[in-house]
């Protein structure tokens, strides 16, 4: 037996007051509609009782959405369809509801849809089919979901793919056009190539005759001709030599962008060594000192790199200062966006994804004024007269074209009468046309 104190009773009253006020609050809330539903344990199971219709928001969502939404019985009878679907197939909603979904599916898709409907009864399934309506076949993506146990129906969401299909068609068309143009271009290049080949050959023929007959003339008339006449004949001879060189150079220049040339792993050291061998005699004559560094292996067209190095080395030797033994140094370094910075890369418009090799040809020859640094790469541009230094004016233009074809850059720095430096930037790898050796 325990005694109940006044304190206990007051405390209990306080508790009861609190609970009463809370219950009153609840009743008030129900009365003024600020409560929608409640969850309660009924027969040991939790259940939700709805006090008022809450589905307004859901209705609006389904009705206004830009996708088709339907509710189908397990036999495929449409018991609900939203306005988007009716509009999509061009049939008023009153007619849609109560029809079978299969009526709106094109003949070719029926079987596929049937299969997926059956699949959906086990859970859900998604597939692409064609609806027929609005006088056309409508490509759509459908998502079917079994809504059991809550509802004995299958929900279906329909997404219109017409626009997507249109874009796909356009894309294919453009790709096809592009492919055709590429084939055309290849043919054109091939025939241009043939033309250049034949033209140069046919142009060389008369030149050969000029050379031969002037030589013959000289031979036959050697003693009887005056010094002046001899000189005239020599001029003819020199001009025809020059013409011959020019034709070859122009032919080489036109040949650079040969569609069939593949980029292969090329050891630049090998190419440089071969080039220097070609100049053995000249190097000896000029007492030239050539120092070479290690060059990398890059994706390139060997023949073109050969022409590039040949021109650069040749120039360095040709434009040496009289009385000073020529000194040429060739070195290289590797550049990458991480190490050399985005500034360097953007200054020379390089591809940040690629690493480059910068090959440096430095000589101590007659150089040039820095203001002409760009000009010298223009075709037929010369800074010296023909009498001073021989040449066709194509060499550096060819170099630039070759370097560009390799997606690289070439630039020059020079000082008047104080040497020149040529920087050749070549990417280490080429994306397309790359074949490993």
């Amino acid at each position: 037996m325990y005694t109940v104190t006044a304190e206990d009773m007051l405390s209990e009253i306080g508790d009861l007051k609190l609970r009463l006020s809370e219950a009153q609050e609840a009743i008030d809330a129900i009365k003024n509609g600020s409560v929608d539903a409640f969850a309660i344990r009924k027969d040991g199971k939790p259940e939700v009782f709805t006090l008022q219709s809450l589905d307004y928001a859901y209705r609006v969502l389904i009705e206004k959405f830009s996708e088709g939404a339907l509710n189908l019985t397990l036999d495929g009878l449409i018991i609900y369809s939203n306005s988007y679907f009716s509009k999509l197939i061009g049939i008023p909603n009153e007619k849609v509801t109560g029809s079978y979904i299969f009526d709106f599916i094109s003949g070719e898709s029926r079987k596929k849809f049937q299969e997926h409907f059956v699949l959906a009864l086990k859970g859900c399934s998604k597939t692409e089919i064609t609806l027929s309506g609005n006088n056309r076949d409508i490509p759509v993506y459908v998502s079917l979901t079994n809504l059991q146990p809550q509802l004995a129906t299958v929900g279906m969401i329909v997404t219109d793919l017409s626009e997507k299909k249109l874009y796909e068609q356009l894309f294919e068309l453009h790709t096809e056009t592009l492919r055709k143009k590429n084939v055309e271009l290849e043919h054109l290049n091939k025939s241009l190539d043939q033309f250049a080949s034949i033209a140069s050959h046919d142009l060389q023929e008369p030149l050969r005759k000029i050379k031969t007959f002037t030589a013959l003339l000289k031979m036959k008339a050697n003693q009887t001709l005056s010094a002046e006449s001899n000189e005239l004949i020599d001029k003819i001879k020199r001009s025809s030599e020059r013409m011959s060189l020019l034709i070859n150079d122009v032919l080489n220049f036109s040949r650079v962008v040969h569609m069939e040339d593949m980029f292969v792993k090329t050891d630049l050291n090998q190419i440089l060594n071969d080039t220097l061998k070609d100049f053995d005699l000249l190097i000896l004559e000029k007492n030239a000192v050539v120092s070479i560094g290690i060059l990398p292996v890059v994706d390139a067209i060997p023949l073109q790199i050969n022409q590039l190095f040949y021109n650069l080395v040749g120039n360095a030797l040709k434009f040496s200062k009289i009385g000073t033994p020529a000194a040429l140094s060739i070195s290289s370094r590797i550049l990458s966006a991480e190490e050399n910075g985005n500034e360097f890369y953007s200054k020379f418009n390089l591809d940040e994804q690629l690493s480059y090799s910068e090959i440096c040809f430095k000589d101590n020859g007659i150089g040039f004024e820095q203001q002409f640094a760009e000009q010298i790469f223009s075709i037929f541009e010369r800074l010296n007269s023909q009498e001073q230094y021989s040449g066709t004016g194509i060499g550096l233009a060819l170099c630039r074209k070759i370097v560009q074809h390799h997606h690289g850059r070439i630039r020059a720095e020079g000082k008047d009468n104080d040497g020149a430096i040529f920087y050749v930037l070549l990417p280490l790898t080429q994306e397309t046309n790359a074949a490993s050796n």
Partner: protein
Amino acid sequence: MKNKSKLECISKGKIFLKLYITGMSENSVRAIQNITLLCDQYLTGRVDLEIIDIYKNPSVAEEQMIVFSPSLIRQLPLPKKTFIGDLSDAKKVILGLGITLNE
């Protein structure tokens, strides 16, 4: 461990709230808007809020005897407090939660 961390939070003034709603009903939407406004204005960093849809989780009725929707329950700090309705009476909620207005 969980209790210990809760205790720690209380000593720093953290409040644990549960908001019960029914899907997208107008009342539910208002309740969500109101509580988030409240939390942002007065309880930044101090509140742990859970929003539960009683349609999706009728089993919440296991814990309480009856759960109204929308309703807000303060679980911690004790004592438990219940606010029924869409919480549009901000003053009432603030007072009830024991938030002092001069932060």
